[in-house]
């Protein structure tokens, strides 16, 4: 087993573990805002780790650049999505909080 193959396996196992743990934490974590932490962790850490494993296994070239671009898209899209869901949740819960305050 070459060091490169070992690195690929480590990245793949780490990324897969992060994705599965974050998905399972959606069920465990209470409340919508805590679940957003799991979502951002999966998109900014789990998916890029798996894509990095694929890119290292592919080696330098056009295919690796395409994979890294997909990973960057997933990370950027996930970040924007997390912020948008948090904003929508806050806006929709604002009237309920005002009713509770009164």
């Amino acid at each position: 087993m070459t060091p490169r193959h070992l690195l690929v396996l480590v990245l793949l196992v780490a990324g897969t573990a992060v994705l599965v743990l974050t998905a399972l934490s959606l069920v465990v974590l209470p409340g919508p805002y805590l679940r957003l932490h799991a979502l951002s962790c999966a998109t900014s850490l789990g998916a890029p780790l798996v894509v990095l494993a694929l890119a290292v296994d592919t080696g330098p070239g056009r295919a690796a650049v395409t994979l890294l671009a997909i990973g960057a898209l997933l990370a950027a899209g996930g970040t924007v999505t997390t912020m948008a869901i948090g904003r929508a949740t806050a806006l929709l819960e604002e009237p309920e909080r005002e009713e509770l305050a009164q």
Partner: protein
Amino acid sequence: MNAWLLAAVVVCSAGLAPCLWLAARGAAQYRLVGISLAGTLAAVVFLLLARGFHRDSYGDLALVLAVLAPAGTLVFTRFLAGEPVDAVRDTAGSEHGE
């Protein structure tokens, strides 16, 4: 079965099931978290399957999903929440010259 296909099976079974469960219950804004994470996981599964089956063209599905899944979620959030009340009030005030 190689490591890529094994990872795809693990992510598809243990990862997508909680997302679908969360996306099927609760208020609409709470379901969006499950849908968004399911999109990310599906893109990763497509990438892993492409490498596992040695078909690089399958990766195009992941590219399309990486673009369209966040866009779809953003549209959902837009329809759900809309504009903040203060922003709508400010816009209406500026249009009337106030």
